[in-house]
C-alpha cells in the first residue's frame, strides 16, 4: 500500500499534510481520493441547504419511511388476526396471501424508494475519474514472481530427482480414485436387474397365472364395462399395480368400432399379432415411446392417440404407429383375452420395450 502512495505522490500538485488543521473534512476526503488515483472533477449540491426544495424532499423521504412502518405493521396485524385456514368457497382466507404480499411489498417499496430518493435527490452529485491501471501488471513484478516460482521448482528438484515426482504421482492417483470410488460405487445401479427395463406388471405370475386388467380403483374389467368407442386406463392386477411402483404398466384399453376394429385386426395380422386383440378390444401401452409421458388424449373420430407433452401422435388402427411429432416407435401392444370368469387378462407381458428409447433397446 505504501509503495502505491509513494509512486502516486509526484503526480499530484504537492503532497498534502492531512494533519494540517486548516484542512476541511472535504479536503481530506479529496486527498484520500487522490491517493486512490481519483480526481473528483465535479461535486455539486443538488438542493440548497435550508431551501424549500430540500424541506420538500426531506418530507417525501420521511413519508415513504413512515409508509413502510404503517405497511409493515399492517402486515403483522394481518398475519396474526386475519383468518388464514383454507375453507371451501370464497372465504376470507383467499385474501390472506394477497394481503400479506401487498403489505410486505408496500413496506419494502417504501423503504426502497425512500432510500433511492435520499441518495439520488438529496446527496450531492459528483463526477469522479479513477485511473484503471489494468494494462498488465508491473513488468518487474511479473519477472520477479515468475523467477520465484521457477526457483521453487528448482528447490524441489523434481528435475534432478525424478523418482520423487513419479512416486508422488503414483501415490496420489489411487488416492484420487479412492475419493471417487465411494461416490460412483454407491450410486451406480445395474439397470437390467431382474430384466426390469423389459418387463412390466403384466408379466405372468410365477405359476404362469395370467394377470388381470384392473381399474384405478382395483376392480377387474368385463368387456361390457367399456362402451363402443370408449377407452379406459387399466393397470396390472397385482400388489402396487395402480401406483408409481409400476410406472411403466399403465395401459389404455380401447373398445373400437366395428370398421376400425377390422382395420386394426388387419394391421395386427400384418405384424404377426393376429391374436393380440380380443373381439373389438385393443390395448396399448400408455407410456409414450418418446419421453415417457402418458399418451392419453384419444381422439375417437380419427383413432389417434396424442401425447400432450410433445404432441407425438399414434394411429391406433395401424398398430399405434407414430404418424406425427418426435416419437419414432409405435406404442407397444398388450395381448389380451377374457378369462373363464369373464374378466380381461393379459395373455402375456408386452412383447416390446415400454417407454422412452435407449441405447441397448433390442
Amino acid at each position, binding site marked *: *500500500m505504501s509503495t502505491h502512495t509513494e509512486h502516486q505522490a509526484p503526480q499530484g500538485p504537492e503532497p498534502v499534510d492531512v494533519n494540517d488543521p486548516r484542512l476541511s473534512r472535504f479536503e481530506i476526503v479529496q486527498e*484520500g*481520493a487522490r*491517493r*486512490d488515483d*481519483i480526481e473528483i472533477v465535479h461535486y455539486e449540491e443538488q438542493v440548497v441547504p435550508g431551501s424549500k426544495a430540500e424541506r*420538500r424532499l426531506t418530507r417525501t423521504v420521511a413519508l415513504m419511511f413512515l409508509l413502510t412502518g404503517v405497511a409493515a405493521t399492517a402486515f403483522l396485524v394481518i398475519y396474526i388476526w386475519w383468518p*388464514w*385456514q*383454507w375453507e371451501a368457497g370464497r372465504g376470507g382466507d383467499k385474501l*390472506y*396471501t394477497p*394481503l*400479506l*404480499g401487498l403489505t*410486505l*411489498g408496500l413496506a*419494502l*417499496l417504501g423503504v426502497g*424508494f425512500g*432510500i*433511492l430518493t*435520499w*441518495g439520488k435527490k438529496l*446527496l*450531492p452529485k*459528483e463526477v*469522479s*475519474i*479513477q485511473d*484503471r491501471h*489494468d*494494462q498488465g501488471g508491473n513488468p518487474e513484478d511479473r519477472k520477479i514472481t515468475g523467477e520465484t516460482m521457477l526457483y521453487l521448482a528448482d528447490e524441489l528438484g523434481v528435475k534432478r530427482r525424478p523418482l520423487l515426482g513419479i512416486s508422488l504421482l503414483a501415490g496420489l492417483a489411487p488416492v484420487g480414485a479412492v475419493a471417487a470410488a465411494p461416490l460412483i460405487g454407491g450410486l451406480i*445401479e445395474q*439397470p437390467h436387474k431382474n430384466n426390469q427395463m423389459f418387463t412390466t406388471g403384466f408379466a405372468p405370475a410365477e405359476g404362469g397365472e395370467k394377470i388381470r386388467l384392473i381399474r384405478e380403483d382395483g376392480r377387474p374389467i368385463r368387456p361390457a364395462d367399456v362402451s363402443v368407442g370408449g377407452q379406459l*386406463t387399466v393397470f396390472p392386477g397385482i400388489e402396487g399395480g395402480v401406483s408409481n411402483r*409400476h*410406472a*411403466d404398466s*399403465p395401459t389404455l384399453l380401447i373398445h373400437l368400432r366395428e370398421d376400425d376394429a377390422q382395420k386394426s385386426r388387419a394391421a395386427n395380422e400384418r405384424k404377426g399379432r393376429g391374436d393380440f386383440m380380443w373381439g373389438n378390444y385393443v390395448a396399448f401401452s*400408455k407410456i409414450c415411446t*418418446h419421453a*415417457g*409421458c*402418458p399418451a392419453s*388424449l384419444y381422439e375417437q373420430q380419427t383413432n389417434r392417440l396424442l401425447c*400432450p*407433452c*410433445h*404432441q407425438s401422435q399414434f394411429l391406433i388402427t395401424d398398430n399405434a404407429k407414430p404418424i406425427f411429432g*418426435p416419437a*419414432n*416407435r409405435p406404442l407397444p401392444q398388450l395381448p389380451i383375452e377374457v378369462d373363464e370368469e369373464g374378466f380381461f387378462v393379459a395373455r402375456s407381458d408386452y412383447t416390446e420395450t415400454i*417407454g*422412452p*428409447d*435407449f*441405447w*441397448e433397446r*433390442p
Partner: protein
Amino acid sequence: MKRRKFDAAALPAKTAGAVDDRFQVATPLRKLLNKVFPDHWSFLLGEIALFSFVVLLLTGVFLTFFYEPAMTEVTYDGSYAPLRGTPMSAAYASSLDISFDVRGGLIMRQMHHWAALLFMAAIVVHMLRVFFTGAFRKPRETNWIIGSLLFWVGFLAGFTGYSLPDDGLSGTGLRIASGIILSIPVVGSWVSSSIFGGEFPGMIIISRFFIAHVLLIPGLLVALISVHLGLVFKQKHTQWPGPGRTNENVVGERMFPRYALKQGGFFMVVFGVIALMGGLFQINPIWYFGPYEAWVVSAASQPDWYVMFLDGSTRLMPGWEISIPIGDGYVIPPLFWPTVVLPGILVGLSTMYPFLEARRLKDYKHHNLLQRPRDVPARTAVGAMAVAFYVVLTLSGGNDVIADKFHISLNAMTWAGRVGLLVIPPLAYYVTYRICLGLQQHDREVLAHGVETGIIKRLPDGRFVEVHQPLTSADGHDGHAPALDYVGWVVPKKMNRLGALGPAIRGFFYPIEKPAEAPVSPGHPPVEPRAEREEVGSGESRR
C-alpha cells in the same frame, strides 16, 4: 485514583482506532469507500439477478423448515379438503402443508418461485446487455464464461427446485428428464438407473434432488457469483464512451455514499416487487395438479419459462432414430439431439464466443469502453440470430397452448416451428445487419449536416429545403459547419435534445420552482423561440 470520565463522543473514534491497530483496515477501507463506479441503467440488470438470489436464499431457508424430502406414501389429511384421503408422497403432502397449514407458507413458496423466475430472467437480460455492448471482450472473458455457467447452474437449480413438490406437473417433468438421460448413447440406462436408484421413479430421487437443490447447487451458485462479483470489482466496470471517458479511466461516482445508497434502495425495490408478485400473482398451484401418477397428465403442461426452449426443441425434432445393426441392434433415439446435443452446443458456443470474436477480428487489446450495438453490426446480427432461435424454440414449447387459444392446427404449429427455426434466425441476422448500417448512416448524416428542424425554407429559386441545425457553430470552409467525428456515443437527433424546448417545469400539480432559462452552451447560439403567429384559417373560428 481519579476515575476518568467516560467520553461517549470519543467512543467511535477510539473503537475505530482499536480495530485498525489490530487489523490494519484503514487503507483498504479507504480504497473501498473511494472506488469509482460508472452509472447507466443497463448496469443494474445483473444486480436484479443478485438481489433475486438473496431473496431465493432467504425464502428457501424458510421452506426447508417445513418441507419433507421423502417419497414414502402417506394419506393426506391436511386442511385442503378436495385432496383429503388421497394417497401421495410425503414430499407432496408437506408441500401442500406449506401452502395451507403453515401460516404465511404460501406467500413464501410463491415468492421463492417468482424470485427464481426473475433470477433467470435477469441473468438472460443481463447477458444480452453484456453481449450487445461488447462488455465480454478482453480482459473480461473469464467473467463472461462464469456468467454463462451461472445460467446453466441456475437452470439446474430451477429444475431440481420445481421437481421437489412431487405434484402431477413436476413428476411429468421428471419423467421427461429420465427419458432424456436414457437417450444418451451407450451409458444412458446406467446413468438413469444410477440417478433414480433403479427404474423410474424409484423411491430416492426426491431426496437426492433436495440435497442438490439446497446444498450442492446453491453452493456452486454462491461460489460462481462471488467470483463473478470479485472480478467485476477487480477489473473495474466497463463504461460507455463520453466526455472525459477513456479506455484507461473510470468516470462515475465513488462507491460511498451515493452509489451504495442507491444500490441498497434498489435491492429493497426488487425485494418489494417480488413480495408483491408472491402475494398477488398465483404461481405453480400444486394443489390443482394432484400427486404425481405415471398415468395422468393434462394438456398445456409447460415447464418454467427458461426450460421451455428445450421443450420446444423436443417438440420440433422429427422422429428420426439412428439404429446401429450390430448384435441385437442399438439405437440413438431422436430425443437425444434436441435435449442433450443442442444444449451442449449452446454451452460451447456461448462460452467460447469472446474468443471466437477476438480471433476473427484479430483483436487482442484491452477494452474498457462499451460499444453501441449499431457500431458492430456483425455481432449485433449474430446476437439477434441467437435471440430469434431462442424465441422460436420457446414459443414452440407452448405451441399447444397457442394452437388452442388461436384455433390453429397443432400440426401446423409444429411445422411452423420447424420451418421458422431454420428461416427466422438468418432473416433476423440480415434485417438486424441492415438496421445497424442504417442507424450508423443516420448518425453520420446528423453529424455532418445537423439535426432536422422540421422547418421548410423556400429558396429564391422556388425550391424547398429543410433547415438543419448544425451541431457545431465553428465555421468550416465554404460557410458550412464542419462534419463532426463520431465518438461512439448517442448523437442528438431532436431539437429538444439541443435545448430548443428548455427544461421541463418541475412539480406535478403546480410548479415548485421558477422554470430555469434554457441552458446556453458556450459558443452555441440559442435556438430562437418560435415567433407568435396568427392562425391561418378559413376565417371561421373552429371553437
